[in-house]
């Protein structure tokens, strides 16, 4: 099974070399982590680079709205039980990021690629994956990205056409189930997580979806929750052989348990025994700065990233258990989506009775939402200053995309 990757044609090899060089240059010049620029150059020199760089490797592609980076890291850790794995770690999840990651490890027989939903058809088409993982589908960044239903449709068309690919799909998510429904080989995972707000009506026929407990079915066509092969239970999972495996993750929350079970199912499809996979992914503790804890003047602040209503809803559940003070940080730059309407879809009411600071470039928009949620709060736009104003001890910091990125960079610079 462990064939070494096909040798690269000269043109790709040259493109990769130049790509690596410009990646190093961009890092030296302080243009960021260099995760994308190298790949961009390589793709320009050889548009087939992604196809050539994945030939002879066993490839897994991970997509979905939330949890891509974490699940990809978990899966890469698990698959490393079989051999070297090329993977895009830093959330550079478009084709240029994939080319960069693959060309850095030309000899790795395995590749685990996090893929933006919009690029999934192109990347799956070029890389001929052995495994495709679809985590969940919900709306993200309203004024930027296409409709959820358009994405479901393009995933469905791509996945249905894939040959010799095992699709690992979340059957508690109506959109994901519809996307994977006609695939040649599907492994269904009951994750216990799904965002129901975008799937009141069937993505296939438009009729209402009816829910009874965890079961759901369409009232107009045959789309219904399939019988799951893997089941997420409280802190554990049930394998297809009906074994119960304790998860005992370092990462918090139900959402990360779902990510872990999806990753275990995908690793299993690639040949990793489940106990071995779980043992490895337990060690995942810090995903590109997410869940990192920073120390500031006696405050121990845990940084959590949430990008959209479904993500915020999950994160508020995670932080609910310990009643620590919370700094909530909101920006509305291009990469976040300029429209903050989605703040009203997040159940901030759960933060009632807690010490809360509204922070970020759009702290006042958040403050209005908190006011109507009857959550007492103060406004401190600078998130580091906000942390300093909390009582000494544990602080939860939840930030959306650019807010998290900037805070993480500043925290790293201070360390």
């Amino acid at each position, binding site marked *: 099974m462990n064939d070494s990757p096909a040798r690269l044609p000269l043109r790709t090899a040259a493109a990769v070399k130049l790509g690596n060089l410009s990646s190093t240059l961009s890092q030296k010049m302080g243009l960021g982590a260099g995760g994308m620029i190298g790949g961009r150059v390589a793709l320009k020199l050889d548009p087939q680079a992604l196809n050539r760089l994945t030939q002879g490797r066993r490839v897994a592609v991970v997509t979905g709205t939330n949890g891509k980076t974490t699940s990809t890291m978990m899966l890469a850790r698990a698959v490393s039980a079989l051999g070297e794995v090329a993977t895009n770690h830093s959330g550079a999840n478009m084709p240029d990021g994939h080319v960069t990651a693959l060309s850095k490890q030309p000899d790795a027989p395995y590749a685990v690629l996090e893929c933006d939903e919009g690029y999934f058809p192109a990347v799956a088409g070029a890389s001929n994956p052995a495994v495709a993982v679809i985590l969940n589908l919900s709306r993200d960044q309203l*004024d930027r990205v296409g409709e959820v239903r358009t994405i479901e449709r393009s995933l469905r068309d791509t996945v249905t056409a894939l040959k010799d690919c095992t699709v690992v799909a979340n059957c508690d998510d109506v959109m994901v189930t519809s996307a994977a429904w006609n695939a040649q080989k599907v492994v269904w995972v009951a994750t216990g997580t799904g965002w129901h707000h975008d799937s009141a009506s069937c993505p296939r026929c438009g009729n*209402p979806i009816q829910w009874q407990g965890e079961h759901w079915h369409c009232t107009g066509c045959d789309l219904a929750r399939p019988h799951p092969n893997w089941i997420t239970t409280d802190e554990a999972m049930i394998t297809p052989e009906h074994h119960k495996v304790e998860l005992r993750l370092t990462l918090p929350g139900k959402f990360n348990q779902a990510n872990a079970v999806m990753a275990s199912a995908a690793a299993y499809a690639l040949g990793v025994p489940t106990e071995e996979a779980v043992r490895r992914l337990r060690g995942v503790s810090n995903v590109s700065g997410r869940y990192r804890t920073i120390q500031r003047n006696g405050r121990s602040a845990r940084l959590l990233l949430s990008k959209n209503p479904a993500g915020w809803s999950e994160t508020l559940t995670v932080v609910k258990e310990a009643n620590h003070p919370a700094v909530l940080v909101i920006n509305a730059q291009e990469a976040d989506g300029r*429209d*903050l309407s989605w703040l*009203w879809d997040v159940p901030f009411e759960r933060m009632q009775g807690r010490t809360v600071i509204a922070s970020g470039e759009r702290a006042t*928009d958040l403050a*209005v939402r*908190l*006011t109507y949620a009857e959550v007492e709060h103060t406004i401190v736009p600078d998130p580091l200053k906000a942390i300093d104003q909390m009582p000494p001890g544990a602080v939860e910091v939840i930030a959306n995309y650019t807010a998290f990125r900037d805070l993480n960079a500043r925290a790293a610079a201070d360390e």
Partner: protein
Amino acid sequence: MSESTIQIALVLPDLLGTYGDFGNAVVLEKRMTWRGIKAEIVPINYGQPVPDSCDIYVVGGGEDTAQTLAVKHLREHPGLQRAVTKNAVVLGVCAGIQIFGESFTRADNVTHPGMGLIDSTSHAGGSRAIGEVIAEPANGLFEGVLTGFENHQGRTVLGPSARPLAHVKVGTGNDGSVEGAVQGRIVCTYLHGPVLPRNPQLADLLIEWATGTKVAPLDLPAVTAMRAERVRAAS
């Protein structure tokens, strides 16, 4: 003021809840509750009949397919239309302005019948209007400017029975010149953000229509600060 509870119908939040439209209902509910007026939100989901007994109806925005389903449902269960004849207050946001009209024509040139509640027709514009909007309320309907975020391809032409809600200073609105529509107690707008958290004066106007009572102002510093910030950002 009546002793009974003011019922705010949140119409098809599962189909027309794309732009945080729940926020409009929450703002109405809280602004009444905080003043001692009993109020409650009544969600009406897809597949359920639409009651005609609510006092205020809030209708939000949705994707094209969701919008088509919503019109079909609202025509089959005409509770909202009956409520309008009984003088109910209605707020229609984004898709609302299109489906309340006589008809709306999509980018594919197919014309769909609307609900005929306001004298307007909508069609697809050449470009998508996205960004912050500032508009001046028409006919002194309420104090201060109207602010919001728009994200729509539709353009709307008002007939003689409908009046514009506001005159556009920054942004596009219905056609680059006027924004929204008012007909009887129906208010439509392309603006979200959502619109009522951003424009408490409009929220209070709807509350006064529904309760038949003038309400005292509420001092919410966060709202004042946010309005000032948004107006600065748009100018």
